[in-house]
């Protein structure tokens, strides 16, 4: 299996590469359009600041390439945020794959610390889109109660580090609660994304990465 990791100016890309290597996959780190299009899976990872990241993606044409991919794509952390329409971080227009706006956490109580950092629980939900699909293909309905990436992981913990979040919306595939519920994971067509870091989330994270590779 050919797994491509999008090469750009985000931090901590190597932790995803290490996680894949631990699973016996040797990924290709690339920003080449052909390599990305021909891969079986594409991972769009990272840690960093949205407007700088978008600037870099635009300079290399990746802002057009990534949304046009038809193979399964997994965005992680800032990757998920960049796949949305717009981010408050640096007030920047993003890739527009998910019709959602990235917002900054605003503390409501003194205990609400920013960034949201640490292990928090995942609650997979069936996205509106999946619900619709299942409704229209009732004969094919296999009783799937959510995105296949998170099957059986209700209530499990994943590792988060972020100050910005995607509100719960039609593309939400898993919800986590911090200050208020937000999108811990998203899905639309071939695009998947997690706000948490599966590559740093122990056994649960590895299961999610494996589910993505085995889609």
């Amino acid at each position: 299996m050919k797994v491509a990791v999008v090469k750009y100016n985000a931090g901590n890309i190597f932790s995803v590469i290490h996680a894949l290597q631990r699973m016996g996959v040797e990924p290709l780190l690339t920003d080449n359009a052909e390599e990305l299009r021909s891969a079986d899976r594409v991972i769009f990872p990272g840690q960093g600041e949205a407007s700088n990241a978008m600037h870099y993606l635009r300079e290399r044409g990746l802002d057009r390439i990534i949304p046009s991919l038809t193979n399964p794509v997994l965005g992680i952390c800032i990757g998920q945020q960049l796949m949305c329409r717009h981010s408050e971080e640096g007030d920047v227009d993003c890739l527009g794959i998910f019709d959602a706006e990235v917002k900054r956490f605003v503390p409501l109580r003194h205990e609400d610390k920013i960034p949201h950092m640490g292990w928090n629980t995942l609650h997979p939900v069936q996205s509106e889109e999946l619900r619709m699909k299942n409704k229209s293909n009732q004969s094919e309905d296999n009783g799937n109660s959510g995105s296949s990436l998170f099957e059986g992981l209700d209530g499990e913990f994943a590792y988060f580090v972020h100050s910005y979040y995607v509100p719960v919306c039609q593309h939400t595939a898993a919800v986590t609660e911090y200050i208020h519920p937000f999108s811990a994971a998203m899905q639309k067509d071939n695009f998947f994304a997690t706000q948490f870091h599966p590559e740093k989330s122990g056994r649960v994270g590895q299961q999610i990465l494996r589910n993505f590779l085995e889609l």
Partner: protein
Amino acid sequence: MLAKRIIPCLDVKDGQTVKGTNFLQLRQAGDPVELGKIYSQHGADELVFLDITASHEGRKTFADMVQKVAAEIDIPFTVGGGISEMADVERMLSAGADKISINSAALRRPQLIDEIVSHFGSQVCVVAIDAHQDEKGWTCYLNGGRIPTERNLFEWAKEVNDRGAGEILFTSMNHDGVKQGFACEALSRLASELTIPVIASGGAGKMEDFRDVFALGHADAALAASVFHFGQISIPELKAYLKKEGINIRL
């Protein structure tokens, strides 16, 4: 709900763990990577690796170890010890550390916090504070608790917070090594005055101490070394106990 974190700390000298050779009959107990892996499998939420080497050669060995940890361990880890300038931070992060911890360097030149935060973000910057309480209050110390400063714990912690650090790792020198519980009163005051997470360190002796540090000290995470290394407290047992005591913990 966001879980409270349990963090084992490994002291590393010349690439080998210093404490804990009688841990779990582990053949590789001296190997920080192997020990870290065991802790991770046992449910540790994060790991801290502290370089206590003085030599230049030892520092290089430590950087090699950080690379191995990053390749083999799938939970977040912080590295500290001997980080005094941006080049050290960059080296540790590019070796794969998730966070770095600075201590004396931040007291000597607080601007370093701002620089780390603006280059790499708040989340990578842990500021460790060693402080001692006497009749005059809580005083911050340099060089692993050897040199007193003019700084008061609460003032310095507030400044660290305001300069944008991601977390504070507070060690009470009064409690460290005594195994009679954490400095819950000071921790609780830090929690009420700061807007960033506080990791409590120094004083863990029994499981109740961890309950108290969360319930009374309002710490976000608790760090310990010897109780884990010498097998006095096992992490799975500790976490099951805390859960039963109503502390939100990742099992």
